[in-house]
């Protein structure tokens, strides 16, 4: 399957393997990392960003594509929506059917609330389903939540909101236990001890996994639990705008059937935005590891209603996306491949960096190698090698099939056997570090009755996220949001519903000199050739 040029480079990778395996590549100093990031991380490319013109984050930096959506009008502007005709009337409305939304719904149901999930695709069509490598929790004797805090705080460039990060690390072991009690099959040894590994930037081996289907195993269990509890799930229906009452509190959402285009009104005492990430906006032209619906819808809904964003200008590019073959370009190659021993190697067979630097540093180093001519050319660009045969040399034959079967299968589909040959990788748009700002209890700070959970939240991780902390955050903050929303719903008395904020937003846009026919949220990326 490889080109002759690739094969020539593979020979160099093989030639240096033995020597490389005898030494661990040096970790970079703090200064070296800073310099590398400034020079090569896409967050530092000014041409990829715009300035927000209106709203609470006016004057701040934002990726161009997200900026365009923020600077667009509501899909409902000029539409006549009869808010007196209520189609769904619930205590808690969860927007999004991924890991955070499902966890929230289960906990809200557990607390006795009348909860409903609305999701624009199917429940489980979410980045959670695609998370491969694992979930962090400081549950071993040599580890502690404080150590976890330090790793995540430093890895996120000391920008995480302490009250959010505290919740993340302190509630991590309980999140694992909750999942285990629901029936998630974690990798354990015969005595029941969790099989844990390192992730980039961890100082203790605290990565729990379910082979390399960690997110899928969690998501399908949560989905099954939602269905068992008979929690209503309205699929193929998107939330297109939040509804407020006369006191400016959130009171529900306008929904739209994705197939019939019909509008529906959902009234709710509390609303949880759990809409996930933005990979399908393809910032700076990057491919993405994200699912089809990752278009930042919740950020748009929240911002138009007046909720501020935090760290919307920091994006995570996963270092190891597929660079070749083109059919799976941008698909995720889990960090676990490096956790269990594979090194990153350039065209000349040189292990140019430690394989487990944090993701932003690791991605920047790959971009540097390729920009400076030490990458391997591919039909769609270039990439560096991930030396996967090392894994079986280190841990024995059969390790790849046992611990990263999804990766093996994905490559075998295209005739590449990663047990025998290295694979080509290049950074892929993976995670939105920023999002809507929340307080420690999960509520937005400016709009009553509105909560946010999961990837749509900004501030939990700071300006970079460690592997395994996202599967963790959707569970911890999803559960918390569900409990908090259910409790709040008991005391909420809703007023009269309105959509006045949509008109107000349109006026603000006009006043800022923005004339646009575009509408947002995007809902689905424009992939049909005629739409591109």
């Amino acid at each position: 399957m490889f080109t002759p040029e690739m094969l020539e480079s593979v020979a160099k990778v093989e030639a240096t393997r033995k020597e490389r395996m005898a030494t661990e590549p040096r970790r970079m100093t703090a200064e070296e990392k800073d310099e590398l990031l400034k020079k090569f991380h896409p967050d530092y490319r000014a041409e990829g960003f715009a300035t927000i013109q209106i709203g609470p984050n006016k004057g701040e930096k934002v990726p161009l594509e997200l900026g365009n959506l923020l600077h667009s009008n509501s899909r409902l502007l000029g539409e006549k929506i009869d808010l007196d005709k209520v189609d769904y009337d619930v205590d808690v409305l969860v927007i999004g059917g991924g890991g955070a939304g499902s966890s929230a719904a289960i906990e809200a149901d557990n607390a006795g609330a009348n909860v409903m999930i609305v999701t624009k695709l199917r429940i489980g069509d979410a980045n959670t389903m695609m998370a491969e490598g694992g979930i962090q929790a400081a549950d071993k004797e040599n580890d502690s939540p404080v150590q976890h805090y330090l790793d995540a705080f430093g890895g996120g460039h000391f920008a995480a909101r302490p009250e959010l990060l505290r919740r993340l690390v302190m509630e991590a072991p309980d999140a694992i236990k909750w999942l285990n009690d629901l029936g998630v099959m974690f990798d354990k040894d015969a005595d029941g001890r969790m099989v844990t590994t390192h992730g980039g930037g961890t100082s203790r081996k605290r990565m729990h996994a379910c082979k390399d289907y960690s997110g899928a195993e969690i998501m399908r269990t949560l989905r099954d639990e939602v269905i068992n509890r008979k929690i209503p799930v309205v699929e193929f229906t998107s939330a297109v705008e939040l509804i407020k009452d006369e006191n400016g509190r959130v009171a529900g959402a306008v929904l739209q059937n994705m197939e019939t285009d019909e509008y529906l009104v959902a009234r709710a005492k509390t609303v949880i935005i759990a809409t996930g990430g933005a990979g399908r906006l393809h910032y700076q032209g990057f491919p993405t590891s994200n699912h089809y619906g990752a278009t930042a819808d919740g950020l748009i809904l929240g911002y138009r209603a007046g909720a501020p964003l935090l760290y919307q200008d920091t994006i995570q590019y996963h270092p190891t996306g597929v660079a070749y073959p083109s059919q799976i370009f941008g698909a995720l190659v889990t960090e676990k491949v490096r956790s269990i021993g594979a090194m990153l190697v350039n065209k000349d067979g040189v292990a140019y960096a430690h394989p487990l630097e944090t993701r932003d540093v690791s991605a920047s180093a790959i971009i540097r190698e390729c920009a400076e001519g030490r990458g391997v050319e591919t039909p769609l660009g270039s990439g560096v090698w991930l030396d996967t045969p090392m894994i079986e040399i280190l841990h024995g034959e059969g390790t790849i099939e046992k611990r990263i079967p999804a990766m093996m299968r994905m490559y075998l589909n295209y005739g590449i056997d990663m047990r025998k040959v290295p694979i080509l990788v290049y950074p892929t748009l993976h995670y939105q570090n920023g999002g809507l700002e929340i307080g420690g209890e999960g509520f937005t700070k400016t709009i009553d009755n509105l909560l946010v959970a999961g990837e749509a939240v900004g501030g939990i991780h700071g300006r970079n996220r460690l592997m395994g902390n996202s599967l963790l955050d959707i569970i911890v903050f999803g559960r918390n949001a569900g409990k908090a929303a259910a409790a709040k719903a008991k005391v909420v008395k809703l007023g009269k519903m309105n959509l006045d904020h949509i008109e107000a937003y349109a006026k603000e846009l006009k006043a800022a000199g923005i004339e646009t026919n575009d509408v947002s949220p995007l809902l689905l990326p424009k992939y049909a050739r005629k739409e591109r």
Partner: protein
Amino acid sequence: MSNEKNMVNIYLYGKQYKVPGDLTIMTAMEYAGYTLKRGCGCRHGFCGACATIYRIKGDNELKTCLACQTQVQEGMYIASIPFFPTDKRTYDIGEIKPTEQIMMELYPEIYSCIGCNACTKACTQSLNVMQYIAYAQRGEFEKCAEESFDCVSCGCCSVRCPAGISHPMVGLLARRLTGKYIAPETEHLKNRVEEINKGEFDSLIEQVMQKPITEMKELYNTRDIEK
């Protein structure tokens, strides 16, 4: 890349389209002009949304695949199965127990398996589906869980099953039973949760939250890393 000689003819629901031969079925549909709503999820082989059935012109064998993981071929007649009514039974995971009877109660149709192996042949993940159903019949849930672990619930097995078995749901039940009841309990997890609930880390975490950034940087940059 998409020059004339690399183009192939495919048939989407019977209608012919000429598309670049290096595309997947999913991207070929988009090239042809479809805006996908059904039959498209994660696009990377994990969610099972894009179950697809196809036949190559001149060949009588029906094949099943995931549209996002399968490259187009000349003469491919393609129909997607965006939804299949698998039959999931509901239960309370806290109430049921991993006994042989539970499968009998919830999924009795597995005992009607006629051993045709059509499920295994249809599996888009190359799993031994019939084998994991056999394990479920015998109450060997751990083996069933292991054998079915890579299932993405696309439903291609169920589409082909003459006994009307919803295989992915059987595997899922076996996995939840295994994860909750059969796999050994994790002592260190239980202990840590108790320690946290007792407040043993409260003051330590407060201290670290209060530290100035310069001190945190020093702590971070000099922390010891487990080998």
